[in-house]
């Protein structure tokens, strides 16, 4: 315990000294998120300074081993670190799919060379990754994916099409699920490979979201040559990695609210927008009850998340239970954004105005609708809970 307090003091004083005040404000828009990568340009000096200091310190990936560019923190230290970051509302210095998904996969399934090649580059924010799983006819039924990789000497030759690839047009590399054995049963013929988005034959087409942003793409592969060394794990064993990673993605999505509501208090926003009655209470009794119900559910949900994390850190498998977190966390987030819109009233109907920072309420509310679709839909999560947790009979 004493050690942990010393660690906390150290983290606190380092953060106090090194986190610029501007980086302790909630993001004014999604555009202020630092993604990193070859094409990255900082939008402010504070952003650059914060990024560089954290990279230098090795705290962009606090729990990864030091030899792979991480901070080498134990789970308990990592918790302390996160709570200290939260205490001062510090922004994430850099993050992308490399941190959230590929890193954990490589730590578990990657070869020593792969770890040394990719993890430090992620931690230093040099390479930005995207996730190439979904295809037009393989969404919920991901295992029916058809993008093929045929072996040709030292290379795979990849052909096919991915869809909904978030930030494919801005990422440097992709981790990708491909079919390497067309004759095997669905899950059995899939491999997990890494490819460079600059390889000849890769092209992307941005797709616009209902929020007006266009963060995701269709990605096309036309005889793309990928070195065989870029296979992660065994040939035709990619499904195991994919499943492991989806669990990670689900943990992530089920956590804190992203975007506008991160670090902001919904009740306070509502009070400001709607006004107070003579007793100082939110002047809309129905909305007030809705906000209170949401807060209760959010508080309770956080407790479950923390228990689950503690169990995972104690070595108990979380497995299919992560579907519970993904399901509830994303539905909760959608509710939260609905309530925000209820509170903002007419301002929520504005799409471009200055007073709404370019229609941020409406746009983020619309974006939140995707939470229960991306990373496995709510219906698929409920299916997993029914079969793998409750073990109900199958039809």
């Amino acid at each position, binding site marked *: 315990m004493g050690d942990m307090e010393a660690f906390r003091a150290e983290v606190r004083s380092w953060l106090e000294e090194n986190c610029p005040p501007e980086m302790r404000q909630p993001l004014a828009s999604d555009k202020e998120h630092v993604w990193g990568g070859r094409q990255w340009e900082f939008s402010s000096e504070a952003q650059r300074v914060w990024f560089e200091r954290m990279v230098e310190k090795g705290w962009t990936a606090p729990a990864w081993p030091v030899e792979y560019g991480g901070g080498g923190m134990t789970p308990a230290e990592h918790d302390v670190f996160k709570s200290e970051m939260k205490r001062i509302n510090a922004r994430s210095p850099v993050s992308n799919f490399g941190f959230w998904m590929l890193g954990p996969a490589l730590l578990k399934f990657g070869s020593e060379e792969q770890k040394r090649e990719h993890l430090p580059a992620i931690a230093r924010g040099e390479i930005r990754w995207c996730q190439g799983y979904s295809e037009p006819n393989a969404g919920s039924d991901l295992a029916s994916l058809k993008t093929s990789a045929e072996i040709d000497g030292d290379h795979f030759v990849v052909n096919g099409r991915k869809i909904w690839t978030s930030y494919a047009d801005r990422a440097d590399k992709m981790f990708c699920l491909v079919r390497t054995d067309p004759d095997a049963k669905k899950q059995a013929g899939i491999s997990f490979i890494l490819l460079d988005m600059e390889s000849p034959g890769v092209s992307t087409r941005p797709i616009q*979201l209902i929020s007006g942003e266009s963060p995701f793409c269709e990605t096309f592969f036309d005889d793309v040559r990928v070195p065989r060394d870029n296979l992660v794990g065994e040939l035709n064993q990619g499904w195991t990695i994919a499943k492991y990673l989806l669990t990670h993605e689900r943990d992530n999505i089920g956590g804190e609210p992203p975007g506008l509501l991160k670090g902001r208090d919904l009740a306070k926003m509502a009070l400001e927008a*709607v006004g107070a009655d003579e007793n100082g209470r939110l002047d809309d009794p129905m909305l007030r009850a809705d906000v209170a119900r949401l807060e209760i559910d959010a508080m309770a949900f956080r407790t479950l998340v923390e228990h689950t994390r503690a169990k995972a850190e104690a070595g108990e498998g979380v497995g299919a239970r992560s579907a519970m977190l993904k399901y509830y966390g994303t539905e909760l987030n959608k509710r939260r954004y609905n309530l925000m819109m209820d509170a903002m*009233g007419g301002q929520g109907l504005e799409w471009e105005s200055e007073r709404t920072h370019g229609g941020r309420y409406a746009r983020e509310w619309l974006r939140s*609708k995707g939470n229960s679709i991306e990373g496995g839909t709510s219906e698929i999560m409920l299916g997993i809970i029914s079969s793998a947790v409750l073990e109900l009979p199958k039809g």
Partner: protein
Amino acid sequence: MILNEEQQMLADLAERIFADKASVDTLRAIRGGSHGQDYDHELWQAMVESGLTGILVPEDQGGMDFGLVSAGLVAREVGRRLALTPFLSTAVLAAIAIGRGGNDEQKGRWLGSIAGGELIAALALDESAKHRPERVATEAQSTGDGYTISGAKTLVLDAANADVLLVSAMLDGTPRLFAVEAGDAGVATTPVVSLDTRSMADVRFDGAKAELLDGDANALDAVLDAGRAILAMELVGLARAVFERTLGYLSERKQFGQRIGAFQALQHRAAHLSVEIEISEAMAFQALAAFDAGAEDASLQILAAKARAAETARLASAEGVQMHGGMGMTDEFDIGFFMKRARAASELFGDANFCTERFARAKGY
């Protein structure tokens, strides 16, 4: 609801006109600025030609005087096709405001032009981001032979297209309706780009020359009722349309070797939604009929109708997006437009919370 012969004819007429003229492509063109107008001009002309703009205008003023149920049949098409038209602001709100609130001379001056499509009018009511019609800070001042008004209004539909603005302002401690020429030097209109591309604006009045509607002093209540009732029908139409598209997708999209509509988890939700839509539509029709009949509890029924329709449209559009998966999140696909419109139509004239709370108050608890 069983429609009478006249209403059935009107329903068919409205369906034909909207099927022919209104499309999401026009909505996209208006959003992109390539339509040249911020409402569907061609559709509006077709509505004028077939008399729909005079649907609530008395016959002796050149209208059809069909009543709110009939206007609701048109509104259902508006919602179904996501049409951008001044139907609500002009043919409903202004027609009722003037028809009830105006004196004979005022009716004679304006109602015929509304029916004939020569006049577009907008209603300027709300002053805060949430609908609170009784909280009016805008004030009217007598100038001897008329009035001037000063104040700021928000969420004014079709203000940018309007010739005349009908404005609620305080006169001797009660809110009354005034008419202001949109071109008056004391009027400043700032268009707001809206979530659902509906024409919307903030309007400031600074000593603008105003004319009191000096007929029935309670006209505003009827205007609010009519607005909520018509929006309820718009929401019902919207809910039905997004549901039909979703059913289509459930019968078409395949995953796991079958059509996703074969999954019972989705079947039950679709079935549930169909029940909600039927109930909300029945409630809306009944509320509109109560208004036409001058029933004592018409306002109460309309609050119930709007509250339900808003919740139903929200559910229908949320299920629509969710059941379309990634496709539902794209701008290329039309489904998101329904979600945006559902949000805006719910908010206008009081959201589900507002209507439910007022319902309880009206019931005395």
